[in-house]
């Protein structure tokens, strides 16, 4: 944000006196309390447009790489008053892959299609959502071993995503970043190893047994994650974010109104969504801490979810190692399916929903909805009244995937 202000020094009408009265604490904005130019003529002139510029009160933030000749894929426009955000609005562009349309006419187990949706949501979550919808369509219950592997994989995704959200939130605290970066990287590596080799997101379960040497490799990866996480000092992180207490609030009423779940809902004091597909138990999580709904609360929730996921990883692996049941034979899958079915997967960012309509074994409609769209609305609301210097932390605490709508 500072970089933007350096590029656009006239973008703000600063009011340092007002800021110094109450640093770090968001205040309510009132129309009679805003710093405005006395008249429209006071606005600076934008040489490119030869008219009075809106830059005096608006800052446009482009989140994704984009071609400057085209509308942005995802942009955030901030209306500012003094040093604070009056409102934030996301602009959705239209650079899309057409994945859902390309699914039409393909077979139901063409999971590679769902993987194209990454990074809409973590790729494995979208694959699993599609896989579960197909399995429900076929009245197919995955065997226990497949469910254990999937639970392990989802927790690995959780470790990667929660630590990534924390890493982005802590970008202004360089001493805290290495451990978070190592945690993120170790989880990514572990996930790539098991997902790439065994296609855990494939409908109808595992296709191959996992060799012993790969299990050994995975154990070492989980050790790497635990070791990296030991360098994450929760107290130091929260202390570094003390200036954000009470900032970036999304309360429970609005979170539910706009359909948010996942960490942002937990931080607002809400009950987590239905985690029935893979049996995650989120009931014992401390929700929101002392500053319900604010940026610090979301960081607290990410930390708790991260640590809970890391604690579950060795338990998953132990159960997989001692599992002695037979896998389903892949040939038992149905050959011709028809109908409409849905499935929900509770991932690290919230619920990913899939609905699939199949006619004679071929996809007629595939829809995978990650939890991104409500989060964009939630960020917009949470940014109101936030100091410009704090915008990046508030946005990062939501764990957004900026390519949310590139489908």
């Amino acid at each position: 944000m500072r970089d933007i202000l350096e590029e656009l020094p006239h973008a703000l009408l600063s009011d340092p006196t007002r800021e110094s009265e109450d640093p770090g604490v968001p205040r309510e904005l009132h129309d009679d309390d805003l710093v405005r130019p006395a008249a429209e003529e006071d606005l600076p002139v934008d040489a490119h447009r030869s008219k009075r510029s809106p830059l005096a009160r608006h800052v446009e933030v482009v989140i994704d790489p984009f071609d400057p000749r085209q509308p942005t894929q995802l942009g955030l426009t901030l209306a500012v008053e003094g040093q604070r955000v009056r409102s934030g609005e996301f602009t959705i562009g239209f650079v899309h892959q057409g994945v859902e349309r390309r699914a039409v006419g393909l077979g139901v187990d063409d999971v590679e299609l769902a993987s194209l949706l990454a990074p809409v949501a973590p790729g494995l979550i979208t694959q699993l959502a599609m896989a579960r919808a197909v399995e429900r369509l076929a009245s197919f219950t995955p065997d226990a071993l497949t469910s254990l592997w999937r639970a392990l994989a989802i927790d690995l995704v959780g470790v990667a995503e929660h630590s990534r959200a924390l890493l982005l939130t802590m970008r202004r605290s360089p001493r805290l970043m290495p451990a978070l970066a190592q945690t993120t990287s170790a989880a990514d590596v572990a996930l790539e190893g098991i997902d790439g080799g065994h296609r855990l997101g494939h409908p109808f379960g595992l296709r191959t047994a996992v060799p012993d040497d790969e299990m050994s490799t995975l154990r070492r990866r989980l050790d790497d994650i635990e070791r990296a996480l030991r360098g994450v000092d929760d107290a130091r992180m929260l202390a570094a974010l003390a200036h954000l207490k009470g900032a970036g609030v999304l309360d429970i009423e609005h979170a539910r109104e706009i359909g948010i779940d996942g960490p942002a809902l937990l931080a607002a004091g809400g009950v987590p969504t239905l985690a029935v597909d893979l049996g995650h138990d989120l009931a014992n999580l401390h929700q929101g801490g002392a500053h319900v709904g604010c940026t610090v609360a979301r960081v607290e929730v990410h930390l708790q979810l991260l640590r809970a996921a890391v604690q579950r990883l060795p338990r998953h692996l132990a159960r997989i190692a001692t599992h002695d049941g037979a896998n389903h034979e892949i040939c038992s899958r149905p050959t011709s399916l028809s109908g409409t079915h849905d499935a929900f997967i509770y991932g690290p960012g919230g619920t990913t929903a899939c609905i699939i309509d199949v006619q004679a074994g071929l996809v007629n409609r595939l829809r995978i909805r990650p939890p991104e769209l409500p989060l964009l609305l939630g960020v917009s609301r949470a940014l109101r009244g936030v100091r410009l210097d704090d915008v990046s932390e508030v946005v990062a605490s939501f764990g957004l995937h900026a390519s949310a709508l590139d489908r």
Partner: protein
Amino acid sequence: MNERHLIALLAARLPRVSVRAGRLDGDTEVLEVPASSLVPVGRFLCSDADAAYDLVDITAIDRWPTTAGKPRFLVVVLLCSRTHRSRARLEIEVDDDVSAWPSLSPVWPAAALYEREVMDLMGLHPDGHPNPRRLLLPESFAGHPLRLDYRRTKHQPQVVPPERGAGVVIDVDGGTS
């Protein structure tokens, strides 16, 4: 909830509202709701303490060209109730010549964006929507690329606002999803 809990609940609480059928899809209760009953049914499912459903998603399915005597489109509303740990799916059939259904935005504000997406990509208009504009595609885009009679390989010139530079042509490859 018990099997077909919602259909019984609706019959008891909203006796004048017709719901065509209720069935179970795994642990999801599916209700086929006439368009005329959608808003009262939605309002009940959202606000009644015995239901308390939150909106998860709204999308639509195009049955073209083999509609088997049914209306061409099926609007699908996914719901979940954290209070009662249950899921529901509302299915609303929409004729091609009508191409409209009642907006659920007054019931669940989160519906607004999903309805814009359905309108944008499938060409079905949510009546009563507070901001019925395209969501993902430019206003100049002709057609609705998720309709199955929209040619997958069709290209359209992208009209770029003057301040962004010269116009370019992008490959929409069947449009967006």
